[in-house]
């Protein structure tokens, strides 16, 4: 299987994630789109790792996943506490720095 196809798929998934962040206003869905982008990067990592015949790329995927897990925990906690204050998670309405 050629590397190009995997990289193109990865680029498309990344793009869909970017469009999602631009188009949607729901903080949770924006968050999911960020996860989608991280995953697209993972796919590229593994594909290139396979192509070069070494494992380093997969180790990086491991790190990306750990960072993604940490990010989700923090991000969702922030979303929950914002929702408690403002009763909304629409990113356009959460526009003041002071709670």
């Amino acid at each position, binding site marked *: 299987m050629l590397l190009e196809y995997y990289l*193109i798929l990865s680029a498309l998934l990344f793009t869909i994630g970017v469009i999602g962040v631009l*188009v949607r206003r729901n903080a949770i869905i924006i968050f999911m789109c960020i996860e989608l982008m991280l995953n697209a990067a993972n796919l590229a990592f593994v594909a290139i790792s396979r*192509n070069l*015949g070494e494992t380093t790329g997969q180790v990086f995927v491991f790190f990306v996943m750990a960072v993604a897990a*940490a990010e989700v925990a*923090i991000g969702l*906690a922030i979303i*929950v*506490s914002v929702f408690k204050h403002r009763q909304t*998670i629409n990113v356009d309405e959460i526009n003041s720095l002071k709670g």
Partner: protein
Amino acid sequence: MNAEQILFILFGAVSLIGAVSVISFRHPIYSALSLVVTFFAQAGLFILLGAHFVAAVQVIVYAGAIMVLFLFVIMLLNLGTLSAKGAIGPKVKGFAVILGILLAIEGIYIALNSANDTTVAAAESATGTTTTYDIGKLLFSEYLLPFEVTSLILLAALIGVIVLVKRESQEEN
């Protein structure tokens, strides 16, 4: 067309459809489920690439933990569809899609170029599978420091979440 190509097209199509559904469903629960489908298709792609360990971890971490957290929060806050007030107009949407298409073209261009570079570098392009042993060995020798730093990141996240939630409850009291 061999089995690997058929499976690639299958998993690739499912992950793309899932990804598009994530950004097009109105309700966050459906978006979250579409994302789970995408993650599954990606795990399938990882298996095709011989990365069994990464595929299993992908399902355990993303589908098993992260997305359950998402569902938990969506259900906890009982987030329905957002009010129309927050929706953005078709003009902005069209602009975003045009930007996205530009980005996709750029990405594909880079993909094709870099693929040409690397395929030359590894002519004998390994077809074997990576075992958990290989990854573990690399993780605990060459990448030991990054590995330990990862644990610090997780610890920081843990403390951060506790602080966020703790302050909240004190203010309420």
